[in-house]
């Protein structure tokens, strides 16, 4: 391979990594939006809570990083469950109010975190073998980025399994398609929503556990990721497959644009592409089936 084709191949590989970050950020939002129809403005803060969970467990308890990731899932999932039980479930019939309520929740979570941990930045430690670079014939990618790609694949497979191969998944899909009909068949729709919301929050927690190592851990760190997540979900249409395809496309395009121009202009181009796309396909790539309440 000549020089520029190596650079191009490297940017394709990097695009895969950016795509996996977008996908992991969007996964929890996809589930909550695609299933319950709740536009969760607090999604970025769930990601932030995941990062803080890892920070707290590492600093105060001394748990190794790999155990912190599932811990973040359960801690943030539990917080999501509590929020759903105490607030969101009263608002399912009022989509606009869930928007405001979850935004309020996000403010509470930011300030609460600031009160507990302070507003100075924290960081997440990762094992040193993840802080290396893997190279092969001129191609290279950081080990941690490879780890995120693997995590993205793993999470996608797990979510697919839950939704399409378990009883819970059948109930979720039934409730998504027609809540009243599902309820008349004895499915506890409220409970299904609660666990779905908790699952989405937990996945955001995992995302936070990963991003905390890549970035800075701050009470306001969620704001950046929630934009990525919404872009992915809206472009994808709310379905799992849609999010996977749209994050792949966005990641690759951003990487290639950044190679040809620069990072700032690449971001601008991405927004333009998405706006033009949504002009012609406002429902997104693969719109979630079934009727909305």
């Amino acid at each position, binding site marked *: 391979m000549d020089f520029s084709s190596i650079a191009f191949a490297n940017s394709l590989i990097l695009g895969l990594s950016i795509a996996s970050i977008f996908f992991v950020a969007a996964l929890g939002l996809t589930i909550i939006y695609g299933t319950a129809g709740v536009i969760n403005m607090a999604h970025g803060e769930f990601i932030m809570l995941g990062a803080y969970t890892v920070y707290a467990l590492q600093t105060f308890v001394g748990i190794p990083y790999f155990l912190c990731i599932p811990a973040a899932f359960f801690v943030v999932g539990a917080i999501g469950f509590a929020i759903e039980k105490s607030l969101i479930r009263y608002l399912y019939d009022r989509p606009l109010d869930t928007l405001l309520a979850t935004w309020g929740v996000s403010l509470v979570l930011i300030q609460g975190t600031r009160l507990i941990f302070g507003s*100075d930045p924290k*960081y997440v430690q990762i094992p040193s073998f993840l802080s290396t670079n893997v190279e092969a014939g001129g191609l290279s990618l950081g080990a941690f980025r490879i780890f995120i790609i693997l995590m993205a694949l793993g999470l996608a497979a797990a979510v697919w399994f839950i939704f399409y191969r378990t009883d819970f998944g059948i109930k979720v899909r039934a409730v998504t398609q027609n809540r009243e009909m599902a309820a008349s068949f004895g499915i506890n729709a409220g409970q299904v929503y609660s666990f779905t919301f908790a699952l989405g929050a937990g996945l955001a927690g995992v995302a936070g556990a990963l991003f905390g190592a890549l970035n800075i851990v701050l009470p306001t760190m969620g704001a950046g990721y929630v934009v990525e997540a919404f872009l992915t979900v809206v472009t994808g249409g709310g379905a799992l497959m849609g999010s996977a395809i749209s994050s792949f496309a966005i990641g690759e395009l951003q990487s290639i644009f950044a190679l040809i121009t620069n*990072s*700032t202009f*690449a971001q601008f181009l991405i927004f333009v592409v998405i706006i033009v796309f949504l002009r012609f396909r406002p429902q997104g790539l693969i719109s979630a089936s079934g009727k909305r309440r």
Partner: protein
Amino acid sequence: MKLSRRNFLKNSAVASALAAPGIWIPQSRGAWGATLTKGEPIKVGVLFSLTGGLAVPEEDSTLVMQYAIDEINAAGGIAGSPIEPVIIDAKSDFSVYSEKARELILRDKVISIFGCYTSASRKAILPIVMQRDNLLFYPTCYEGAECTQNTVCTGPLANQHSKDLIPYMVENFGKKVFFVGSNYVWPKESNKNAKIWLKNAGGELLGEEYIPLGDSEFGPVLNKIREAQPDFIFSTVVGASDIAFHRQFKQAGFSAEDMPIASLTTGEIETKAMGAEFGAGHFLSAPYFQALENPTNEKFVDGFLSSPYGKNGATHYNMAETYNSAYVFKAAMEKAIENHGFDEVTSARVREACAGVKLGADVSPEGETWVDGDNFNTWLVPKIGRCKSDGSFEIVKQADEHVAPDPFSIYPDAGSCKSNGLVAPDGSVRVDVI
């Protein structure tokens, strides 16, 4: 004309419209100025963000300002009057900055404002400060290219900042350099200066990349760096992005030994935030480091960290510059009170008195500095520090003498900044250049 209700209203409306300029617009800019009363506290505004994206490091600026004011008040205040800070949270929102600056001047009648970390917020409040002829102490580094009659700056200008850093890096690591910066005015102007120093040092610029402010994806930039293979990197990335940059730099397999990052912003607070292992081996140019060994700095570090304001656990260049601005204010106030009397002190007279104010090595933690009498920026000694494995810095080079601030160093055609305005080469004077 019969005096009817309607006519009366019409006539009085016309009359008041005609009279309005005389009533509402004072004859001089100083007519809004705060006045001091003997025995009453001296009010100053402290306008930084305590929340939002700029809270790091602006929260530290607020804390160190409170510490400095407490210290001054404990030592008897200014001519017997204590300083009373009016602390505002600007919420990292530029419209809040300008709104609150107006409130501070008109409602709280502060004699000066200490505030802002970014050039964007400074430019947001300067029109208001200039309109009311108040005074802004801007306590951090910036790009220059401004000449107002209402600011005093205690941090390094672009021409002071990288002057020693670039030649030092070229000499020790090689000629080839890659510029990375955040995408806004300060990095771009700083890089214009850096290019001049680079040319003088015989260096070669391989590439220049800017990242959106606050963005955390450095993959594409790191790929370009890998391809260009520079000898070192010159960074003007700020804030949260800077921390992400250093972390991803190491995670992408680069090492500080082979390709160090020479930064203008990565100080003690950033290395603490990213984890010291990610900062170790990289370089910073600043007039102040926590590790400076002098009695004033030791007193400052110990005093601050053990005070209620020292909760974040570090001191850094931005804090030292903010701390110094409080003492410049104190010295200027005392001079203005001596010259004009306590009741006659205005913001403009404080500004005037700032000219040439010298902070001795017994006051300034970074060593002796003084305010330039022409452009009201600060003469200081830039130092280069290398981050150690514990996140603190060791000083590897210190300029032999003070470097003069020159806000228009890269725009010689614009003229030079004097106390009465920007004097162009043809002799014409422009005021309020921002």
